[in-house]
């Protein structure tokens, strides 16, 4: 048993922290909250040069094929920002979906460009009914003349406006899990991505208006195999998303402790008051619950142990933790925390977004109970 990071993980963590602090300091993060903002191209390019867009891409396609535990170290640092952008959408969920679903030839065609940052993937699953199961997918893709034709919408798709390609989950058969995955050029005629307004981070609506996708865009060689592939990809992607949330919780914790020392009311730093202390203790308990459930799930996946119950638990715990951590931080900060330029609001926004993204806590808890065969 050894719960410490390895030496190389420590190095990665320092490098990632320095990168985020240099390339995306507070005012940049705050600027990225605007609905019309885009991740600076230079930042994306530098991340590609550091190899961070291809961490899960096999070495033969120009990636580093890292263990999930290593990837998680990077995403915890991104989550501290929280640095938005398609790091997770393209580099983790998109990449894993291609790895699980695509043919050899497709992988060779897609993944090198993902690792270099030229191709940016976004996986479009949810529809207006917002269910995370296979039954939630109703978008049909009738096939004719060597093309699939798409008419309909996907919502709460992460980073679609930044994506060059979408991986759309579509219904291609009559059975419950007759789902296929189509690679769609985001610039194809009839595809429109729009960032959703409100207290969301990077979540988009994607509409397909008579979009023709060549049958070669079907990931894998056969239809109706998409759901199983997506499930395998999600199993590995969820705990990386959890690490991002752990990083968010950690940042919010540090902000709150610092504020408790600096803010003076009634002649003393407010952290001297036990009511204020209680908020921070609630916060740190959520932070550590998220940290350790996530770490164990990652370790189980890397070690090849059955991990589904641990993964669902980690997503449920981390989603709740990030939301509750932000709530506690707002109680500590009062008015200060509501100022957009201060830096807490980006976390608040992100915590709400990721609470339900790829399955909310209740959904994951129920999946966990099923996996445990109660």
């Amino acid at each position, binding site marked *: 048993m050894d719960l410490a990071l390895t030496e190389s993980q420590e190095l990665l963590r320092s490098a990632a922290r320095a990168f985020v602090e240099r390339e995306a300091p507070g005012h940049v993060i705050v600027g990225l909250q605007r609905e019309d903002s885009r991740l600076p191209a230079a930042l994306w390019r530098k991340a590609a040069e550091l190899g961070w867009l291809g961490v899960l891409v096999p070495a033969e396609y120009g990636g580093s094929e890292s263990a999930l535990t290593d990837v998680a170290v990077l995403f915890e640092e991104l989550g501290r920002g929280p640095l938005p952008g398609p790091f997770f959408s393209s580099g983790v969920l998109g990449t894993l979906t291609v790895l699980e679903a695509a043919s050899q030839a497709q992988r060779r065609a897609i993944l090198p460009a993902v690792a270099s940052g030229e191709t940016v993937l976004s996986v479009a699953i949810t529809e207006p009914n917002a269910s995370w199961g296979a039954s939630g997918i109703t978008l049909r893709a009738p096939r004719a003349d060597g093309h699939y034709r798409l008419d309909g919408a996907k919502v709460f798709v992460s980073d679609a406006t930044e994506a060059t390609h979408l991986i759309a989950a579509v219904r291609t058969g009559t059975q419950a899990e007759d789902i296929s995955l189509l690679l769609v050029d985001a610039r194809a005629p009839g595809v429109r991505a729009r960032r959703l307004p409100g207290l969301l981070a990077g979540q988009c609506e994607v509409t397909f208006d008579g979009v023709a996708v060549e049958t070669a865009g079907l990931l894998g060689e056969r239809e109706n195999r998409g759901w199983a592939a997506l499930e395998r990809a999600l199993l590995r992607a969820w705990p990386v998303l959890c690490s991002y949330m752990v990083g968010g919780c950690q940042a919010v914790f540090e902000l709150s402790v610092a504020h408790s*020392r600096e803010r003076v009311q009634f002649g003393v730093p407010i952290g001297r008051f036990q009511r204020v202390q209680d908020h921070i203790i609630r916060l740190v308990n959520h932070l550590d619950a998220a940290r*350790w459930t996530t770490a164990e799930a990652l370790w189980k996946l890397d070690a090849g142990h059955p991990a589904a119950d641990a993964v669902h638990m980690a997503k449920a715990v981390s989603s709740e933790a990030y939301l509750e951590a932000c709530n506690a931080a707002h109680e500590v900060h009062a008015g200060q925390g509501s100022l957009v330029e201060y830096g807490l609001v980006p976390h608040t926004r992100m915590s709400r977004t990721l609470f339900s993204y790829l399955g909310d806590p209740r959904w994951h*808890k*129920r999946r966990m109970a099923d996996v445990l065969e109660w």
Partner: protein
Amino acid sequence: MDFEVTYTDEQQRFRGEVRAWLAANVPAGITRKPVDDADSLARYRELRAFGRKLGERGWLYPRAPKPYGGGGLDVDHTIILEEEADRLGLTLPPYYDSGGRLGGATILVWGTEEQKQAFLPPIYRGEVRTWQLLTEPGAGSDLAGVTTAAIRDGDEYVITGQKIFVGSDHGTDRIWMIACTQPGGKRHENLSWFMIDANLPGITVQPMEILGTGGEGGSDPVQKNTVFFDQVRVPAFTLVGGENNGWKAASTHLELEHGAGGRIGRNRVWDRLLAYCQQTKRDGVRLVEQQDTRDVLADIYIKTQVMRLFGLRNFWLTYAKQPRSYEGPQLSYYRKMTGLWMTGAILEAVGPAALTTDPTWGSPEAFLEQQQRNGIIAVHPGGTADIQRVSMARRIGIGRGAREAAGTVH
């Protein structure tokens, strides 16, 4: 990271040795729920006899140093022993004993060589059982306010006062206590620890009637006592850690008591609760198949898993000698609050069957009724949940000026 303890061939051989030894030496029926007081005493005697057998091999306190009668084993061998004991529903030590884990650990840090030689071997060999005496009627959370006096008189101290919420069933051999060695002296600089014989003239033990049930067996029995001291004379040699230095020595004791040691092992209440809900029907449907109950069970399960992970983390921090900050009191706080919360959650999941000891209408061996009681009373021993929060806040450095280091243990 690696959450798994991996075992060498030598360690696997050790596991085989432990398993075979336990199979040959654990008395039949030792984990039974006693049927009456006489059976409870009989069972306690069996546990003590078994403890002495463990002690002969150094397995009662496997981590304790060998020169003083401990096992001198490393973390991995200790885990193997604890896992094998856990398989049989036993803990190490198999009865309530504050001697090795708390008193012994403090003596190892603060005792003289002569004191270590005198006090530790009987503890580690299981020859004596020790109770810790801290709380008094006027000094609960405010431990520094204890007034039980220990006044020097030649080569002896004379102890007078009252301690409450002490020990377990069936009496004790030794007492590990904190007392005031300078009444009226400066706060935090007037306390000392003593390791004394429990059967001296002037000591009276009186049971307290409290909410908990259960009794001897695990590490958290709930029978408690009041102990009166009336002019009890003890040798000066029994004072550990220097006169009036007791507050500093207390930090070693309290850190351990507040969960810093961490632990591994299953959550037995959870295992039994799930089995109960899988077997019990409401409206003809098994509880575990009812969505509302299933949701509550998921919440309970997750909290027990988080508790397990906090325990595992603290276990690792301790034995890998990693720096620690708030993790000890955090585990204690989380454990206490989860236990209290679970009383309500279980009531919601199971209904009033959780409240009765009736063999027909309650749970097997009334394990749920026991959880209802113990979940409530466990909030206070070893420092209340609120005290754990105070301790966490201090160590995190909340509200402290930048000049004061955050996260230091003191």
